């Protein structure tokens, strides 16, 4: 239940976050000076938190999206299965986000 609205929430976060991906690519195209300014902005505490939130939204939406695709195939609707996959999605999203930043930092 909570996970369902979280799917929508993370989707909106990424819709807005798409601007960040676009800004990143535009700055790569614009040249080293603009890129360094963008990189410096993203290296601040606020920028970091933004990126960590973005990445969690991505991994959560990805994991829960796959869960939805499985449901679309007509499988996994038993209460026990749905509860188990909910926990799996939540833990996987947190774990992969942590692993991603462990590699990055």
């Amino acid at each position: 239940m909570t996970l369902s609205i979280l799917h929508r929430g993370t989707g909106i976060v990424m819709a807005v976050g798409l601007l960040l991906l676009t800004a990143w690519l535009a700055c790569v195209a614009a040249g080293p000076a603009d890129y360094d300014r963008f990189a410096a902005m993203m290296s601040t505490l606020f920028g970091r938190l933004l990126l960590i939130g973005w990445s969690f939204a991505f991994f959560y939406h990805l994991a829960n999206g796959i869960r939805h695709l499985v449901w679309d195939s007509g499988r996994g609707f038993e209460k026990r299965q749905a509860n188990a996959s909910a926990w799996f999605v939540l833990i996987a999203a947190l774990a992969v986000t942590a692993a991603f930043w462990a590699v990055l930092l």
Partner: protein
Amino acid sequence: MSLRAPLGRVLGLGSAKDGTGHWWAQRVSAVALTFLGLWFVVRISAVSILDYGKVVEFVGNPLNSVLLTLLCLAAAYHSYLGVQVVIEDYVHAAGPKVVSLILSHFAHIIVAVVSIYAILRVGLGA
């Protein structure tokens, strides 16, 4: 101009008026993004993201340029479909609804075009 009879055109469309088209497009772009998104995070985590030269090398690599373009297209499309549903669910007044749908439509097209233009600029070395 369609040769289909008016009855044939509306049968099975339901109250949303577009049948399963939107639902299906959302699923297809989701499947594409599963692969493209995973590719991106795996590859980008291995790039020294603060090093401008390394980033240009990554984006400018031909295979990466193509996959990044596909990623941006699929992401913008999937996001457009998702935001459309959110607007339709929460914005009820006709005026604001149409205006926000059009704004979201424009914004997503701009995001896609700017991203792809930037990728091509780097990839083609302009």
